[in-house]
């Protein structure tokens, strides 16, 4: 997260010339040989369609330059100084992507601990579990913020780093949201956990959707850092006073309902801001995206993620999805993470989005099971499809990362000289 420095006039003129070329429509081109393929024809076709970039997309990814505007209040106030202090303690041999991955794992671990005690988001966990989750989120935030600084410090900045960073962010969205649900015991609110995850995922996707349109990542005064600190505070309060704190009545409403209402209003305000940017600030031809495609189309993958899960949840006649709400929202989070990852890759490689993704077979299987009146046991099918969607997400991340590393002649988790024998 850096503030963009103002450009000189000379560069500005050159930028304008490049702008016209940059934002022309670029349809997907055909694939060429890649050593990322495994050799079996059917598997190769799946990987080509679902996981790999074309040669032109890789070249455009090469040219990508990180661009962000950060007016975050807490960042300006104290966090930047803290992060700049922390980064000095990192050894120079630690790869930035390794920091990002460690942060994700820490976050995942602390959420799993809480999940163990609160499987339906209605139970009470020990105080130390909430504290652990707060600490884990803080560590994640710090590592997430310092990986970019470490990259610049050792001269290892690359588009892969940004991609990896955003990828881990998308995977951790559902973890952070689950933390909130456990603290507030939202499982006792009808649809509470699912709606919270829905809002979280939509907001994250919309932020990157606006980036796909403008080519620039924008942070408002109250944004990611402030949201994360709010959650950390919430977890600490829960740790000190217990989750019953959120059931205290004020003006006839429980504190948790008031909190949810405030979050809802804040979310709507933020979303309207993003939508305004999306509709008016497209940098491509005729106000289109960085790839020259329609600014509206990214709504379709988002709906393709959200609508099936809303239907599955509302259609269910038994309480199976309330009893297994954690697995359900984890599955939802994985599908949304892949859709968001595709959007991020499309932005960085300036290419068009495709509507279909094979990860949708997970929710579709659940829907077909309901369509035919529950022929397969729902909890069993939910678990199988969750395994499937996480496998799909993992395969996608592994292959695309490997392809980009091969293309750029670098390693993902090592700081070394460029790979021997590779060429761009």
């Amino acid at each position, binding site marked *: 997260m850096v503030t963009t420095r103002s450009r000189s006039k000379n560069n500005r003129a050159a930028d304008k010339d490049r702008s016209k070329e940059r934002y022309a*429509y670029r*349809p*997907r081109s*055909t*694939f060429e040989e890649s050593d990322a393929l495994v050799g079996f024809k*059917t598997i190769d*076709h799946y990987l*080509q*369609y679902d996981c790999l970039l074309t040669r032109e997309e890789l070249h455009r990814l090469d040219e990508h330059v990180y661009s962000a505007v950060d007016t975050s209040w807490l960042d300006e106030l104290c966090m930047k100084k803290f992060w700049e202090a922390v980064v000095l303690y990192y050894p120079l041999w630690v790869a930035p992507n390794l920091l990002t991955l460690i942060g994700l794992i820490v976050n995942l671990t602390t959420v799993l601990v809480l999940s163990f005690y609160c499987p339906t988001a209605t139970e009470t966990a020990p105080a130390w579990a909430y504290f652990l989750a707060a600490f884990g989120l803080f560590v994640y935030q710090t590592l997430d913020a310092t990986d970019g600084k470490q990259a610049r410090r050792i001269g290892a900045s690359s588009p892969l780093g940004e991609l990896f960073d955003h990828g881990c962010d998308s995977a951790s969205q559902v973890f952070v949201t689950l933390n909130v649900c456990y603290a507030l015991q939202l499982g006792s609110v009808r649809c509470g956990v699912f709606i919270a995850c829905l809002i979280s995922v939509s907001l994250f996707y919309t932020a990157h959707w606006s980036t796909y349109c403008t080519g620039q990542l924008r942070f408002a005064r109250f944004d990611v850092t402030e949201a994360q600190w709010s959650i950390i505070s919430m977890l600490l309060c829960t740790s000190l006073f217990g989750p019953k704190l959120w059931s205290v009545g004020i003006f006839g409403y429980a504190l948790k309902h008031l909190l949810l209402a405030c979050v809802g209003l804040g979310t709507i305000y933020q979303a309207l801001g993003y939508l305004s940017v999306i509709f008016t600030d497209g940098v491509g031809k005729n106000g289109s995206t960085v790839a020259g495609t*329609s600014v*509206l*189309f990214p709504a379709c993958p988002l709906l393709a993620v959200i609508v099936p899960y809303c*239907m599955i949840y509302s*259609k269910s006649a038994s309480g199976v999805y309330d009893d297994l709400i954690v697995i359900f929202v984890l599955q939802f989070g994985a599908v949304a993470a892949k859709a968001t990852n595709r959007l991020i890759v499309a932005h960085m490689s300036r290419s068009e989005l*495709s*509507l*279909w993704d094979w990860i949708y077979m997970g929710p579709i299987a659940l*829907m077909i099971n*309901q*369509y*035919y009146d529950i022929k397969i046991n729902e909890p069993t099918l939910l678990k199988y499809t969750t395994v499937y969607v996480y496998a799909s997400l993992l395969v996608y991340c592994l292959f695309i990362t490997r392809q980009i590393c091969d293309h750029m002649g670098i390693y993902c988790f090592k700081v070394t000289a460029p790979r021997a024998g590779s060429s761009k």
Partner: protein
Amino acid sequence: MTCRISAKACGIGQKYIEADCLLSDQELKRLKEHKYSAVDNSWLDELCMKRWWEFVITLCPMWIAPNLITWIGLVINLITVLVLSSFSYSATESAPSWAYLQAALGLFFYQTLDAIDGKQARRTGSSSPLGELFDHGCDSMTQVFVTLNICYAMSLGTVPYGVLIVSVISVVMFYCAHWSTYCTGQLRFSKFDVTEAQMSVISVLLFTAIFGNGVWETPIAFGYTLKYFVVGSSFLVSLYQIHGYVHVIFSGGVGKNGSTIAGTSVLFPLFPLLMVVIPFIMIYNKTESTVFDDHITLFSLCFGAVGAKATNRLVIAHMSKSELRLWDWIYVGPLALMLNQYYDFVFDEYVLLWIATIYCYTSLFIYCTVVCRQFCDFLNIYIFVLGPRKSKSN
């Protein structure tokens, strides 16, 4: 306020057309460079039909555009099917003899006009990729009409799933033929192919006209009637044909590493086909009432429209050497029917079937209109009139 809403609606319509119908400039260029390529071993064609068609072509005036001939054939076929369907709406009733006779004649006219449009184009020097595109487009729409003729003649509505199975096989056969063309770049006709199939259908219709459609209930052997014998034979021939197509698809790819002429996977065209077939089978299978049996004609027409659009996309992908897309907005029709069933029949199924069918045909019509218009603009020609446009220049 009204103006703003109208402008918004126009904007949405424009975006829909851009997403669903338009070709890119590169695709248009490749489409322009396309050359027709076919291998015709058809038995009846060699035997007598070519002589008949060459005779008929001499009767055509030189001022008639080839696409107009194709279009007239389609309209004739459509009218004769509608007449027959008015008597035999659920494919279980008998129709008067003259209805079957006029359907047979209509199909014969359609076949003749479909065959001579290419000859007329060469005769008038107006051959173009648009002609081939238009021809295949009309063919894809008539698939369901020809199939319905068979179902009416044999009263297949009395057989469970009879009409649906015949429709599915018909669409799959036609799609696979063009799928193999997408892989090899060459349209192939075997000894028993379109012409023979059409003459078989005409024979069935004439037979029904002469003897009445009760003749198909004649017991043959093992408790099966003549109807089952004929349908079973057709099924076996279809399987043989599909096996041939699949073999060509897997081994005849002319692109890199055996891929298609667009350089894409030879397997991907399978998925649009499944997207057409599977929803309709699920819808038919799931329903708890007899609405789709009572209105099998409407259901088949809806299925035919979706199948036609998928096939049209495949034809265009072949001719413009571009990749296929999985999603098409016409799928909203069958998806709406599935959604209604998913939520336990919130809407009346019959009404929703009408709405879905109208939507699907509207989508198909818009697609065909926009593609043809775009391509005519690009080639600087008209669809139904001979000669280049006067005001424009290339």
